[in-house]
């Protein structure tokens, strides 16, 4: 504190400038809160609207005179019950979960060694190779889905959820390698060197010494890869058409809309039921993603 006072005096800061700084500070805070609330409102708005809709009676929902933001009739959970009991929504959810789990597993088994190789084994080509792999992430499903759909047929996987298990790692591996490289670089090299002095091989040092320390980063990559898998739309739409084999992202929009009949409340309930848990888990790991992205870009 004394230090600041000395500096202020030496810079000639008077009471007036202090007051104008204070005013600017207050304005800045107010602006910050207004922006934060505005962004939160616009981002969450459609889901709030979905949530209100999900509990409305038909008589309430389909009355143009009613205030759409209020419950003009008693709440009902019947559309939620319909969603879980009379639609394949649970099957979609289950498919998304197990496809996601297997894809994450494949991603880690292939991506971790690759990331370690690029981050730690000091090859001269590691730098541009890492960037090349990241670029693969930018080759979109839109460009590949037609030929992949023929390949899926050739493998005999058409109309099976397994086709997605096969194809989704192409989306998750590149971006996961990039993130994992960042996390692995953050581990001090001495720890592996010590492990090798203690008798581990180069490979053993990676598995026994580096991997456990990278665990927090690995968890973040698991969440990220799962989110990517759950969001994917084009492949799921192109490869899988039987309703029991569909995943959430294609099942909900195709099976809960029959021709011109929209099961609005159930649709909106599905949207909220899926959105909330993913965003919640993702929020827990947000700081780690930011750290991972930054470290991946900094040369080790």
């Amino acid at each position: 504190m004394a230090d600041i006072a000395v500096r202020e005096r030496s810079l000639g800061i008077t009471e007036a400038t202090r007051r104008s700084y204070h005013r600017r500070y207050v304005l800045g805070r107010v602006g910050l809160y207004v922006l934060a609330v505005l962004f939160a409102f616009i981002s969450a708005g459609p889901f709030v609207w979905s949530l209100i809709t999900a509990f409305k009676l038909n008589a309430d929902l389909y009355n143009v005179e009613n205030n759409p933001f209020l419950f003009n009739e008693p709440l009902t959970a019947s559309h939620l019950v319909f969603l879980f009991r009379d639609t394949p929504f649970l099957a979609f959810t289950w498919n998304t979960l197990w496809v996601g789990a297997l894809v994450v597993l494949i991603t880690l088994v292939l991506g971790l060694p690759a990331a370690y190789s690029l981050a730690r084994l000091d090859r001269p080509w590691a730098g541009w190779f890492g960037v090349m792999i990241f670029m693969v992430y930018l080759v979109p499903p839109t460009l590949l889905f037609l030929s992949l759909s023929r390949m899926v047929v050739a493998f005999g996987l058409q109309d099976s959820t397994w086709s997605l298990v096969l194809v989704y790692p192409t989306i998750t591996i590149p971006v996961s390698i990039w993130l994992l490289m960042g996390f692995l670089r953050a581990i001090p090299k001495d720890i592996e060197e010590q492990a090798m002095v203690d008798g581990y091989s180069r490979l053993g040092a990676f598995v026994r010494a580096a991997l456990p320390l990278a665990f927090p980063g690995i968890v973040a990559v698991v969440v990220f890869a799962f989110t990517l898998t759950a969001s994917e739309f084009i492949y799921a739409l192109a490869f899988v058409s039987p309703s029991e084999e569909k995943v959430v992202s294609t099942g909900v929009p195709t099976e809960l809309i029959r021709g011109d009949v929209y099961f609005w409340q159930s649709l909106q309930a599905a949207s909220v039921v899926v959105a909330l848990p993913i965003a919640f888990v993702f929020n827990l790991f947000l700081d780690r993603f930011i750290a991972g992205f930054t470290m991946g870009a900094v040369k080790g």
Partner: protein
Amino acid sequence: MADSPVPRRRLSDSEGFLAWVLLLPSVIYIVALVAIPFFLAIAFSLSDVTTGDPSFDWAGFANFEAVLADSVFWRSLWNTFLFTAISMALIVVLGKILANVLVADFRGKWLVRFFVLLPWTTPVALGAISWLWLLDSIYSPIDWALRQLGLLGTPNAWLGAETNLFWLGEPGLAMGSVIAVHVWRLTPLAAVIMMAGLVAIPRDIEEAARVDGAGYWRRMFEVTVPLVLPVAAVAALFGAILTFTDMAVVAVLTRGGPTHATEVLASWAFTKGIGGGDIGQGAAIALFLFPLLLAAAIAILRSVRRLEVL
């Protein structure tokens, strides 16, 4: 080898060997399921493959001729550019503002972050379903609010005498709606990328400039903007690529309608290739995405380089 000074020299100790062995499985996977399908797509675009007749026959540039002769293709090409350009500009500006909000400290930050992440972490198709109902032709709450304000539904109302705006039924409004959904879902991603960039920029540089007597504008243009530009470019290109190649928003919201007003290359390729079964033409349409993606990828590469120089 016997008189080597290193007592044990196993394969699992050779860094050069390990580097390849550890990398190879990922490379094989990506070559098999990204590189091969990519070249297959080029081959399909030059063939007459359909879902009904999957035998491969050379067709030359017939698919490209058929595609270029179709006015819907030109419409979707134009729309793809339009949607991407407008969304990208909005995503970058809003993403930068949002990133600045999210790096600041304030009460309830956790909750704000949670709400702000929702559009991005929710599967695109489900977010679009929420919007589909929000923009419903009869029950849209936006129309209701406008009616309550007297802006809609009365004979002299500013927005017209009809009771609804038909967000997804009027070509202009439908295009605006599609753009709005893209901006809504990708702004959080841009903000996260820019936060990563903001965190990476050394704090002391700006302080040093301040101590050296650089004024606000000078700091802004000679320190902050050059430092933020590469990150903003990365965020912009990510936003652009994800808008450019997406078909989920269009597929759920408008299905390309009304009368192809919101058709984009991705949705048109899907309609032709999977819906119509004409794989050759679908592949030809999708390939039009490639040169632009390549340009975007090179631009990202250069931005990342500049980031690394920091």
